[in-house]
């Protein structure tokens, strides 16, 4: 096993293990901390794929910003005591069905990745570096990029409007 493969397996175990710990932790604060670990492990995978920009943006946006807000909310609501969840009989079934749907979508989305991976490798594998990413985003995909930024702007305006009402 080369060092890359070793790292890959380490990161994979870390990702899956910490993701499971997010679900199984009793204390919501621990769940959030495990989620941060998960994001870090996923960023490690991005770096292995030579997508450094994606890796660091994942850390800045998810681990750095969104998780801080999560932590804020949980700390302020003080969910320290284990709440007894309302258990209904249909809950497990709903969970199984929705989880199965997600699995189906994931399989459908990922079934062609082998072919795409070959294509990526053919392009010398540096598509994830920031220069190439910038070119692709601002030349090939300029319209979707701008539309999504307008979407974010409208979400921000909406948040301000909702906040102003009180």
């Amino acid at each position: 096993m080369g060092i890359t493969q070793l790292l890959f397996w380490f990161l994979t175990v870390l990702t899956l293990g910490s993701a499971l710990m997010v679900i199984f932790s009793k204390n919501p604060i621990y769940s959030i901390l495990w989620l941060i670990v998960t994001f870090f492990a996923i960023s490690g995978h991005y770096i292995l794929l030579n997508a450094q920009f994606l890796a660091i943006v994942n850390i800045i946006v998810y681990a750095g910003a969104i998780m801080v807000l999560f932590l804020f909310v949980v700390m302020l609501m003080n969910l320290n005591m284990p709440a007894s969840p309302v258990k209904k009989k249909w809950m497990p079934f709903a969970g199984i069905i929705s989880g199965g749907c997600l699995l189906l979508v994931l399989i459908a989305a990922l079934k062609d990745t082998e072919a795409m991976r070959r294509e990526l490798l053919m392009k010398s594998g540096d598509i994830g570096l920031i220069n190439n990413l910038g070119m692709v985003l601002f030349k090939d995909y300029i319209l979707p990029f701008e539309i999504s930024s307008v979407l974010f702007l409208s979400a921000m305006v909406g948040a301000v409007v909702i906040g102003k009402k009180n």
Partner: protein
Amino acid sequence: MTLLALDWAFTLEKIILIAIIISISLVVAMYATYAERKVAGFMQDRIGPNRAGPFGILQPLADGLKLFFKEEVIPNHSNKFLFILGPCLAMLTAMMTSAIIPWGGKVELGGRIVDLQVADINIGILYIFGVVSLGVYGMMIGGWASNNKYSLMAALRGASQAISYELALGIALIALLMLTGSLSLRTITDQQIQGNWWNIVYQPLGFLIFFICSLAECNRAPFDLPEAESELNMGYHQEYSSMKLGFFLFAEYINMFISCTVIATLFLGGYDMPFVDEAGLSGITALLVGLLALFGKTFFLIFVFMWIRWTLPRFRYDQLMNLGWKALIPLALLNMVITGAVVLFTMK
């Protein structure tokens, strides 16, 4: 084993470099506490510490020893694991940024070209950003785990302050990036050495915004609201004692040292000694001159940080938020738009 295919000399070199950088950071942070008290004494027409050793030079060692020997108290109703994790994270994130700072040029030592930068990654500045955005966790987790309402309030204040000032910091950096066209700190320094002027000449407003935001990110006065002792007893580390408190305080000084180095690298030419042509010097001399220049700039910036702390009173919380959101962010946006327009019309 293909594991042995690693370049062991390279790995060893980097490990030694990391050890040196961390020890230097710790020593500088230690003596920054001493400098802070001396500067405070000077500003307030006092002498400052002068008992331990000549000129009080052993004072930081005495303080450290005192912290080590103090009784360690963990509050009864706190979460023990998180209580210990808080200062560890604070220290870790304070140390992490130093990895991408170019401390000097490349030198040849014993037939090997040694790079005085732990990692020259092509997303350098974004890495700084990532670490800065993680910096709040130590404070938040420590403050919350203490199970004390003052600590919690201080932690929330600190986190919201850090998030607010990160935005202006980032936008100021974007304007700089438009000029340099590279995210690597090594490239940015080289451009300043080869070009005529340092980046501060092209980006005076950006420098000012970046400097103010660094003050806020380091929780230095006038932005030291998380430690506003007159309102919050002591701040987010109120329940901490012994070396865990020491870690929090130490991390703060390391943060200050590293952020001053980053400012020096980004805006003040890094290891570029003014009026000296580095290319004409031999390897070791150039290295020493570069280190001298970088540390000179950094120590001057640290002095300015202290100068500001002992001159200005603390902001009120709403004033802090107003300054961040209504003054710095619009200014940074304006700076970015102007820079973008200038770059567009002159350089292409």
